[in-house]
């Protein structure tokens, strides 16, 4: 107990901050530890945005390289991971833009849609939807469904709900306000729910609805 009381009074230094400090002084092994720690997450986030493996690999490499080059700019008032995610998200959006031959891609794209902001599919789901599909079929359904969201919703859902960043960290990573993150998150969740309903609805409910059409 006494140690927890003590630690309330002193700001704890995140281990990443020490690694960044060492990396800044040229300690490559320290930077490599940071890469090891976060390469998997950054790859997942990148792939959710760019939606193909080759581009995601490039994004991960470019993001870590940029982070390495900009280590001096890391202030330490946010987590290193949040800072790194911000770099990776920007790299991924740039990559998407390139692929679309110059068409603007931003996290504000298509977020004005009203789709899914009010629940429409009100049928209950099967009690255990995951038992309705095999592992790989389920993964296909989930990928296809999330890929249908506008990037600005997708990335908020992925950071907040899949990767487990806090609302504040998500806002910081994306350069969005907290209310903007909250509003996008709710709509992303509702849109995904709406789209998954067609797969997970109770079988009898689906057949009765089909019959009503």
């Amino acid at each position, binding site marked *: 107990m006494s140690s927890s009381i003590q630690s309330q009074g002193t700001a704890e230094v995140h281990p990443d901050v020490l690694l960044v400090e060492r990396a800044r002084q040229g300690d490559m092994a320290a930077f490599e530890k940071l890469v090891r720690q976060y390469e998997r997450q950054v790859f997942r986030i990148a792939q959710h945005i760019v939606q193909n493996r080759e581009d995601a690999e490039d994004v991960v490499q470019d993001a870590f390289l940029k982070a390495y080059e900009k280590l001096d700019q890391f202030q330490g008032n946010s987590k290193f991971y949040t800072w790194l995610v911000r770099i990776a998200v920007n790299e991924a959006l740039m990559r998407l833009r390139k692929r679309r031959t110059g068409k603007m891609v931003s996290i504000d794209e298509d977020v004005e849609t009203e789709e899914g902001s009010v629940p429409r599919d*009100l049928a209950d789901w099967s009690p255990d939807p995951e038992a309705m599909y095999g592992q790989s079929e389920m993964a296909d359904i989930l990928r296809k469904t999330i890929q249908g969201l506008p990037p600005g919703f997708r990335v908020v859902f992925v950071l907040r709900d899949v990767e487990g960043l806090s609302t504040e960290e998500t806002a910081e990573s994306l350069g969005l306000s907290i209310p903007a993150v909250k509003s996008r998150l709710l709509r992303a969740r509702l849109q995904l729910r709406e789209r998954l309903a067609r797969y997970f609805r109770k079988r009898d409910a689906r057949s009765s609805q089909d019959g009503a059409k």
Partner: protein
Amino acid sequence: MTCTEFLAQLDDMLDQDWAIPLRADLEEHLRSCEHCEITLNTTRKTIQIYRSHELYELPDDLRERLHRAIMAKCRKC
């Protein structure tokens, strides 16, 4: 409480610890509104399913290749 008022608080309900009971007025609405109950439960399920499935795995061999490429780039700069 109307459904619109209930939905306005959906995020808070989803983000709180699922073991914590909801506020009394929310609980009361849920008891009388099947649609909101379904919306809350299926949205929870949506999040849980996405959390529990690794959609983009990074196999060990690819991870190693990627790791080496990252470090090589950084060492060069």
